[in-house]
């Protein structure tokens, strides 16, 4: 065990730029918001038995661009809640806006009516109202909070949560930082939604063209055209409008995390973005992934990992040299958030350029043929020379098109869908042969020359408490129409199924299979529960998460024990997908009903 004195109480939230000022900002004292109510970048730490959160608005400036922000306690991100496992906390949310607001405590186990989803768990917080969520803190780890009202989350209404364990922390580090990744845009989120509805590829300035450098031949280009799809449709909203933020700071604004040579640094990476997946790496360093979605996992050494919207990963690194760059590149490589591990103020390491944008592959279309597919267990092809590299996912066709002749392929054979899926214009694709893609490192990372995390690498550190085999399986299809920008579960937008929630009996254990019939990766979040990824981890040690990426054209499975009664939101955590209908309510019956 390390002999270094623990200093985890000095969790340094906002890095070197944190002001630490906790004084009530002017706008919260009644200052004119419209004229000079400026929002600070970075966040404070708040703790104690009773915590006040004041939701307000103002102007945010990122690298010279102005945008309207809905912010909590006057900063973006809002304050870091520092909680302690085993205590009871009162979170008092004061709404100074002229519209409703809410706070969802993402990943926290609590009574459903405090979960903060208007229309599911509570009525919302009206203008001038205060809502108090008082609950015992039953867990530890890295989480976050955000608005669940309208599109406020896009404009700055989010912040980190760090819960210290009641006992010793198995993760030992000399320094403990939060890196919250998000986006800034000067565009109003309603306008973003509107543009997504109206213009296919509106934000994509990396489309195929006569003059692009993409490794696509004429047949492949025609094939994409025939399907009426875009091989470059990686993220819906891109760096063309987003500036990617590290703890509220743009890449040119120089967020620093201090370290002394020889120290081990824990970084709690939170993807608090509205619409972005990030590829995170620290060139030259090995990152040991020690927790996923707040819960400890057996350490996994990697050199890069993809973090989906709303996921969290804790990593431990031992920086060397004067400085190291933390790169969080948007999955479509249209921009990056940056921070520096600096051994002295101002120290900088090289910033790698953005890599070439990736293309969607056969596997992303749900095209997995016998030779590759069905889990692809061909032991003779196992190549241990790849040691030190992520194993190429067997379920992923290595080349973008793999030379396939697609002319005879029906990309929308709705007879392959179960009767629970409502077939209609809202479904533009059916995965022909969806396979388990939890061994996939994520779009664009299947061929990088270093180790990349996959879900199959995750193993719970602590034995799970429910050893039962699920009594039934529930298959849910992720469906969409890119052209109309419709997103749904089982072909039905939430607006069509408000009276038909997904129902679980109390304490029922269910295996949920999420089949992705779209060409986008969806981070699916279940409120109020952790579920276990069915990822081949040793019996009893399936990793628990609150958000799971379902890769395009593939499926992911999790086991969930429905032991938190009440109504819970279940949705894609891409904000505009949720807002387009990819949302459902999970109803867990009360124990009395059992």
């Amino acid at each position, binding site marked *: 065990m390390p002999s270094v004195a623990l200093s985890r109480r000095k969790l340094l939230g906002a890095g070197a730029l944190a002001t630490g000022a906790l004084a009530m900002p002017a706008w919260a004292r009644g200052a004119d918001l419209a004229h000079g109510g400026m929002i600070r970048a970075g966040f404070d730490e708040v703790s104690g038995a009773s915590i006040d959160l004041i939701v307000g608005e103002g102007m945010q400036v990122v690298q010279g661009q102005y945008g309207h922000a809905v912010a909590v306690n006057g900063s973006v991100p809002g304050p870091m809640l520092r909680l302690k496992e085993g205590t009871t906390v009162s979170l008092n949310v004061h709404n100074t806006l002229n519209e409703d607001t809410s706070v969802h405590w993402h990943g926290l186990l609590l009574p459903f009516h405090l979960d903060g989803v208007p229309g599911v768990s509570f009525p919302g917080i009206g203008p001038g109202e205060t809502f108090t969520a008082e609950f015992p803190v039953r867990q530890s780890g890295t989480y976050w909070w955000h608005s669940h009202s309208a599109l406020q989350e896009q404009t700055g209404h989010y912040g980190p949560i760090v819960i210290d364990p009641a006992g010793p922390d198995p993760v030992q580090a000399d320094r403990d930082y939060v890196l919250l990744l998000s986006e800034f845009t000067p565009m109003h989120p309603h306008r973003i939604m509107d543009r997504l509805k109206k213009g296919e590829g509106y934000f994509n300035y990396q489309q195929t063209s006569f003059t692009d450098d993409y490794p696509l031949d004429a047949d492949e280009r025609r094939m994409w055209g025939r399907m*009426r799809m875009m091989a470059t449709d990686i993220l819906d909203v891109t760096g063309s409008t987003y500036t990617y933020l590290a703890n509220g700071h743009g890449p040119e604004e120089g967020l620093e995390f201090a370290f002394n040579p020889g120290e081990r640094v824990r970084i709690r990476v939170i993807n608090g973005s509205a619409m972005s997946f990030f590829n995170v790496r620290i060139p030259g360093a090995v990152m040991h992934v020690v927790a996923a979605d707040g819960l400890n996992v057996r350490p996994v050494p990697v050199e890069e990992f993809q973090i989906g919207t709303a996921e969290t990963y804790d990593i431990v690194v031992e920086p060397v040299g004067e400085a190291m760059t933390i790169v969080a590149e948007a999955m479509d490589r249209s921009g990056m958030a940056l921070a520096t591990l600096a051994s002295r103020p101002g120290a900088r390491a090289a910033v790698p350029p953005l890599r070439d944008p990736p293309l969607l592959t056969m596997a992303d279309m749900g095209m997995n043929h016998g030779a590759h597919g069905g889990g692809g267990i061909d032991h003779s092809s196992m190549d*241990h020379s790849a*040691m030190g590299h992520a194993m190429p996912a067997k379920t992923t066709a290595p080349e973008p098109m793999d030379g396939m002749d697609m002319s005879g392929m029906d990309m929308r054979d709705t007879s392959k869908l179960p009767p629970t899926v409502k077939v*209609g214009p809202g479904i533009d694709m059916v995965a022909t042969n969806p396979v388990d893609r939890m061994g996939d490192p994520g779009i664009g990372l299947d061929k990088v020359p270093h180790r990349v995390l996959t879900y*199959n690498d995750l193993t719970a550190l602590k034995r799970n408490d429910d050893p039962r085999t699920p009594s039934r399986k529930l298959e849910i299809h992720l469906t969409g129409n890119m052209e109309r*920008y419709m997103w749904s579960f089982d072909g039905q937008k939430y607006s069509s199924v408000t009276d038909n929630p997904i129902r679980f009996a109390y304490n029922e254990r269910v295996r949920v299979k999420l089949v992705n019939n779209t060409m986008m990766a969806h981070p699916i979040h279940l409120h109020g529960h952790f579920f276990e990824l069915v990822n081949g981890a040793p019996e009893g040690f399936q990793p628990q998460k609150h958000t799971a990426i379902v890769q395009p054209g593939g499926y992911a499975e999790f086991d969930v024990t429905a032991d938190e009664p009440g109504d819970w939101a279940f949705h894609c955590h891409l904000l505009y997908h949720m807002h387009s209908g990819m949302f459902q309510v999970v109803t867990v019956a009360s124990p009395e009903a059992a």
Partner: protein
Amino acid sequence: MRTALLPGIAMSALASPVAAQDHSMHGSHGEPAQDQTECEKEAARHRAMGHAVPAGECAPPESPEKDRAEMDHAQMDHSEMDHSQMDHGAMNHSEMDHGAMHGSEAEIPILPPPPSAGSGPPTAADAIWGVDAMRDSRGALARDGGGMMTSGLILDRFEYRFRGGEDGFLWDGDAWYGGDLNRVWLESEGEGDFEGGVEDADVALLYGRAISPWFDLQAGVRQDLTGPKRTYLDLGIQGLAPYLFEVEADVYVSNKGDVTATAEVELDQRITQRLVIQPRAEVSLSAQDVPELGIGAGLDTIEAGVRLRYEIAREFAPYIGIEQEWKTGGSADYARDAGEDPSATNYVLGVHFWF
């Protein structure tokens, strides 16, 4: 159980400096070897680390289930392990083919929820906050969950037409309001010249309904704003065809019983991210002569053109282009009788605009 955090010892691997960890093995196994052999090597490495690996661990798998058990590191005694010397590369779980280990899917039946899961709409929050208190937010959530309405206006073509002395103008635009699948459309198209004013213009009010992921069926009324001001029933289809052709086809029945039709197709081809070349063609057909409108039975007119636009913003793209129009058959005769040229070449300068 905090005491169950013993794998925390695994964490102690992190206590040793990362730099001291041996990653030199990476890439050193040159040849793809038989799986079993590699497994033996792996087992040998584990044993060298003081790690109990049962004999037979590398026996050929008999079933996925068996395979899973065999690969189960939980069976190994991690507590014996001195992780500080460990090659993390060698321990990299990603090297193992977990695909083989995924369990027991076949054994779990797809079933509906048991009766104790209850039925009906979600009402848990009503019991806490009251039905009335929840009503507004439930409605708002439904609207926010896919019930959104949009409205928009697009001027596909709005252009000045140079044609040797008789320069003209043209507009072709749509406005709509509605949801993802059902929309009300107001469409208008017209042209004229700067001496004679508007020569030919119409407006249509249509209800459109999605009939496939990419196509809408539209039905409504079209009103001519020029000439004898005919009124038509309009039945059309509009959407995106394979290979990204934007197509629109309409059949019209006039208040005089005349049947006509139009079909147009456009294709946006990106030269760069902002420079787009758009070939476009349109044909008009008629089931009968309509002398008042100068339309002959059969193929009436053909238009073929190409426009090159630059998207200053997606919503605002000035363009230049050329378009050729031909009247054919009877329509050409009517044109000649009226002293007009049945074919015309237009050099166009315009803007493609939407919001």
